[in-house]
């Protein structure tokens, strides 16, 4: 297990290195001169030179990259060009709202999708299965932008029951979480269903039945513990995509989260903030991946006890 963990950590560090390199190339090399994007070509040469110097862009690219990397490791992602505050500070103040949104969405969507998936799998082929799967497909197909608009209109305007802007109280989270969770529950319940069906087809299920184990325990113990492994992967994927994909929802509901910060940064062409945001979020992703892999290892005795390759 230790060897397995070490391997995973090493691999993650490599991926992070790649992430910073690609981000750096995208934002600093591809556009030629990032300052031109930032200043929108209207500025005079003097301003351009000043900004260039301020950002340290007048130095050779490799130097810039290693400087960026060195500072990043120390937790310094530069200073926001427009907000004039350290990028790390802006990011960590926005992280709270996004993390809350992400975790609540995850919890709600799992509470919906696990029972839906198991029920559909156990009664596969029946009308229950078909109804649940249709619902799941519908959930998956609802455009979140549209759903957000409709929910704002119904719950915020017509019923005036829930706040539709801000992220101050828990009540502010109800609508965003509902909208996101509906979307994710669709895909998740289909995946869980397939996994449970797969596990139900295993020989050990037949063995358990032949021992006289009641069907309830066959599903809840034998099947679920095996299906839990892919579900952990699923949780990782979902958490990642909520953290990275809540931008629309955060903007529509004016929540002070990472996504909205990113969109603000894009709109103001705030290069250091964009770069910081991409690297920061990617780091969170890589860490989530790592945690998922480690939990995976803990759940599966074959990995836990043996370790080694994959």
């Amino acid at each position, binding site marked *: 297990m230790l060897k397995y963990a070490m391997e995973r950590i090493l691999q993650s560090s490599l991926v992070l290195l790649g992430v910073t390199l690609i981000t750096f190339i995208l934002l600093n090399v591809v556009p030629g001169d990032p300052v031109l994007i930032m200043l929108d070509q209207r500025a005079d040469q003097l301003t351009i030179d000043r900004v260039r110097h301020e950002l340290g862009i007048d130095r050779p690219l490799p130097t810039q990259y290693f400087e960026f990397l060195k500072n990043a490791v120390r937790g310094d992602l530069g200073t926001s060009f427009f907000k004039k505050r350290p990028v790390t500070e802006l990011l960590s103040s926005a992280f709270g709202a996004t993390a809350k949104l992400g975790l609540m969405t995850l919890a709600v969507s799992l509470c919906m999708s696990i029972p839906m998936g198991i029920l559909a799998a156990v009664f596969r082929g029946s009308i229950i299965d078909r109804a649940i799967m249709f619902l799941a497909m519908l959930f998956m197909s609802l*455009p979140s932008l549209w759903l957000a608009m409709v929910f704002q*209109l119904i719950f915020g305007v017509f019923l005036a029951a829930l706040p539709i802007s801000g992220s101050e109280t828990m009540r502010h989270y109800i609508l965003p979480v509902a909208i996101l969770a509906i979307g994710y529950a669709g895909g998740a319940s289909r*995946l869980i269903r397939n996994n449970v*069906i797969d596990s139900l087809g295993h020989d050990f299920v037949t063995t358990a039945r032949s021992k006289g184990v009641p069907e309830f325990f066959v599903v809840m113990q034998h099947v679920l513990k095996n299906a839990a492994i892919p579900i952990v992967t699923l949780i990782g994927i979902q958490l990642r995509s909520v953290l990275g994909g809540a931008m629309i929802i955060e903007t529509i509901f004016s929540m002070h989260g990472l996504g909205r910060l990113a969109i603000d940064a894009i709109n103001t062409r705030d290069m250091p903030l964009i770069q910081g945001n991409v690297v920061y*979020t990617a780091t969170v992703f890589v860490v989530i991946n790592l945690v998922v892999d480690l939990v995976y290892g803990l759940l599966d005795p074959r990995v836990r006890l043996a370790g080694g390759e994959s």
Partner: protein
Amino acid sequence: MILFRNRTKLYEEVGMADVLRDTGLYKDAWRRLKRSPAALVAMGFIGFVVFLAIFGPYLTPHDPNLGNLMVRLKPPSATHWFGTDQLGRDVFSRVIAGTRISLFIGVVAELIALTIGVIMGTIAGFFGGWVDKLISRLIEILSSFPFLLFALAIMMVLGPGIINIFIAIGLLSWTNVARLIRGQVMRLKTSEYVMAARAAGANELSIIFKHLIPNCMSTIIVILTMDIPGAIMTETFFSYIGMGVRPPHASWGKMLSESRMYMRTAPTYSIFSGLLLMLTVLAFNTFGDALRDALDPRLKNK
């Protein structure tokens, strides 16, 4: 073990047998597809949307981009079936015109992603070794990025516009395709008939193009169908941020985001583009799902 064989496994065996028989595959898939009414309805709807996308411009009762400021934000009426927008343009005509752009973006962006993915996946799976390691790492790195944020950053660097949407989506979403194709190619590479072709003296390229890619075709078709809705949704997002198609052109995403301001005064404005968007995505999802079951039951959990 074949003991107490269950139905899914049995179907899987049937599916395998089809792949082996090769020629019967598409005919059999079609037969299986026909049995699912949902898939047929979805297919019909996709056909309808494609028809709109192709012939839409000849069908619009009004010029979709020409407004009449005298009739702004009107509810549906006899002249304007879906009402009018904030510039007095006919929503019905714009929804139809938007179909072409939204669908086009979905299909082309996915085709780009698919092309890159198939090439990368085949190379990685076929040659293995360090090439495979390199591509696999690249896939891993690219899938560690937050997709939308990264796509937005690309869009910012490249500027708004349809072509750039293609590039942004295409550059980022090939990784899934590559991963699937890589696995499949690796499995096929060691299969008996590829061995036989090799023994008969076929060179690498002809093995790739004659044996490996045709055998991945069903996977490719399924991925294409299932990923198009994602690309269409991404377009909505770009439009919302203001990085979508340039005005005055219409796309579903653009109409949806523009209508947001007028939710209260003209609620019908947002309904139609949203509804068409949702139904199209639903149709693609349903059809893709049925297609996968019909063509390649082994793909189920991917």
